[in-house]
């Protein structure tokens, strides 16, 4: 931070006295020594957080990268170094590429729908005057449902034997077979994932809308007669920071946090059901006992998400106006 402390120490001091002075904090620049009088104290406070980050994030990441280069015995008796073979296997497998394609599709559709519907509801709820609170509470309450429960409720809705949505589809002459038909299952996954995420987006959009100054809205009311124009020209640009934040969060959600929903819908069902890359990592690693291949997949996934995030910040954030 600053190079002054050493200059301030007298030149004839021995190393020991210097160290002692440093330890007791005497040489620290007094202007900056606001809260801690010993240099190690702040690190002590940081330690628990750092430990959590290292143990639960960095260590597994390093483990994943390491084991992605090995072919591991399913029963844990040994591992053989295979270099990039796991990566090559994954990227050459049509099954893996199919899952990747579905993940991309799922990601785009769920994010678009969840953001779109969340925004629509927020805009409408923002205009409600009478009973606004209970209306908002009802919309937000879905967010309190845990993803596995959401998946379970969704599964009951789509169930082949007792699901009301299956009956609804049958009424229109369509035989809905969630868990058997690939696209039927995909539809169910998308509906549940979107339903689960709407309240989250709704809360943020609503608070974003309410932070648009009233007088700015009124000025727009005088400047533009069409409500759609006002929304498009004034409200939406002012919501852009919120929308950008939600976009990043929603993409992460569809890629990772939809895992429990997929698990509930797809688990114990016949093969060839749609799933995301994360679920495939789990399936190959823990059901298929292919630790090396699964690690390689998760490293690829890590790279994809890192790339996506960089792209979002580089190209989208520039267009975002922060008040």
């Amino acid at each position, binding site marked *: 931070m600053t190079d002054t402390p050493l200059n301030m120490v007298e030149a004839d001091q021995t190393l020991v006295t210097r160290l002692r002075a440093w330890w007791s904090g005497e040489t620290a620049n007094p202007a900056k020594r606001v809260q801690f009088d010993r240099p190690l104290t702040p690190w002590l406070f940081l330690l628990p957080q750092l430990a959590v980050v290292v143990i639960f994030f960095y260590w597994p990441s390093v483990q994943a990268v390491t084991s992605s280069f090995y072919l591991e015995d399913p029963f844990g008796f040994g591992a053989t170094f295979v270099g990039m073979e796991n990566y090559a296997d994954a990227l050459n497998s049509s099954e893996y590429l199919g899952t990747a394609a579905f993940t991309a599709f799922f990601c785009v559709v769920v994010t678009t729908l969840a953001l779109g519907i969340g925004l629509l509801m927020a805009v409408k709820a923002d205009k409600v005057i009478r009973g606004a609170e209970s209306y908002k509470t009802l919309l937000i309450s879905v967010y309190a449902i845990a993803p596995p429960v959401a998946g379970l409720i969704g599964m009951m809705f789509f169930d082949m034997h007792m699901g009301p949505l299956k009956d609804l589809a049958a009424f229109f002459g369509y035989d809905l077979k969630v868990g058997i038909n690939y696209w039927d299952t995909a539809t169910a996954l998308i509906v549940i994932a979107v339903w689960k995420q709407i309240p989250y987006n709704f809360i943020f959009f609503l608070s974003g809308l309410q932070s648009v100054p009233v007088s*700015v809205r*009124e000025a727009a*009311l*005088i400047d533009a007669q069409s409500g759609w124009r006002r929304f498009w020209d004034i409200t939406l640009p002012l919501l852009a920071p919120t929308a950008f934040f939600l976009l990043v969060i929603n993409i992460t959600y569809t890629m990772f946090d939809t895992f429990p929903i997929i698990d509930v819908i797809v688990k114990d069902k016949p093969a060839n059901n749609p799933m995301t890359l994360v679920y495939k990592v789990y399936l190959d690693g823990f059901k298929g006992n292919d630790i090396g291949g699964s690690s390689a997949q998760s490293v690829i996934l890590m790279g994809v998400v890192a790339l996506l995030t960089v792209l979002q910040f580089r190209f989208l954030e520039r267009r975002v106006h922060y008040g």
Partner: protein
Amino acid sequence: MAELTLKSVGKTYAGGVDAVTDVNIDIKDGEFIVLVGPSGCGKSTLLRMVAGLETVTRGDVHIGGRRVNDLDPAERDIAMVFQNYALYPHMSVRDNMAYGLKNRGESKAVIEERVAEAARMLELGQYLDRKPRALSGGQRQRVAMGRAIVRQPKAFLFDEPLSNLDAKLRVSMRMEIRKLQQRLGTTSLYVTHDQLEAMTLADRLVVLNGGRVEQIGAPLEVYRKPASTFVASFIGAPAMSLLDAQIEGGQLLLAGQALAGVGIAPGPVTLGLRAEDLRIVANGLRMRVEYVEELGAQRIVHGMVGDQAVAVIDQHDTPLGPDVRIAVDPTRLHLFDARSGRRMETRLHRVAEPAQ
């Protein structure tokens, strides 16, 4: 440019609170009208009803002969300047000004010309490509003005546009607004709680109290002949001193001394005294001096006559004793009904024998 008429306009909010009651104002084409009153008097509500930002509960609002009660704000052909400027933070100064015109389908050439003209008038030329956050308060206020000007509306509506500026800037912007309005000749409705701003800007003042019009008139007319004790105490600084007085036997008595002869029935009245109408003299009403405000060009002497507070403007700087004598020209006295507070018109004349 148009005349603006309010006919028995009233506003009742949900819950039955009356914000504005039975307001009638006829505003001539090109006139600068200032709505003034303390906070909560309904002046902003009235303005917002004209703008269309509040619904009109009762009565009619006409702009340029057209009833606008049920028109959207954008259809009323008005422009509004807000207290906190209400600029679009994500648009440049140029786009802020052009936005309203774009939405009304003006051609690019017309928009460009009007924005350039407004920028020249308001000396905003070099800031056209800046965002509002890169501007100072005064500059933002100018942009808000520019946004109103480019529309060439039938009427300007100002909602306390200067109250976010510092005192010095407020005075210079006040002058600019007045000059600009005179040059453009656009009918203007201006809301403020600052009576000085109201006096200096207005062609006519509308003094509001509790949602009702207390008085409408030219600033000097309102100052010289306040219609009620409320107007008397609100307009003018220092405020007019209002004192309890008696009328007995055709004479106005204050603290037992006759000030003037009047032709009003005996009884209690409220007497209004402007500080500048009072003089410190050798012989007159006794006033106990409480404290003196030195203003340089003059001083304001605050004191008590009997047990009632009076302020006197004095041009001299001779030291004052604990007691002074004050006198007033009887024609400069204001009399108000003691109960209703309404002004009583009467001829006041000097009493034969001046009080000692």
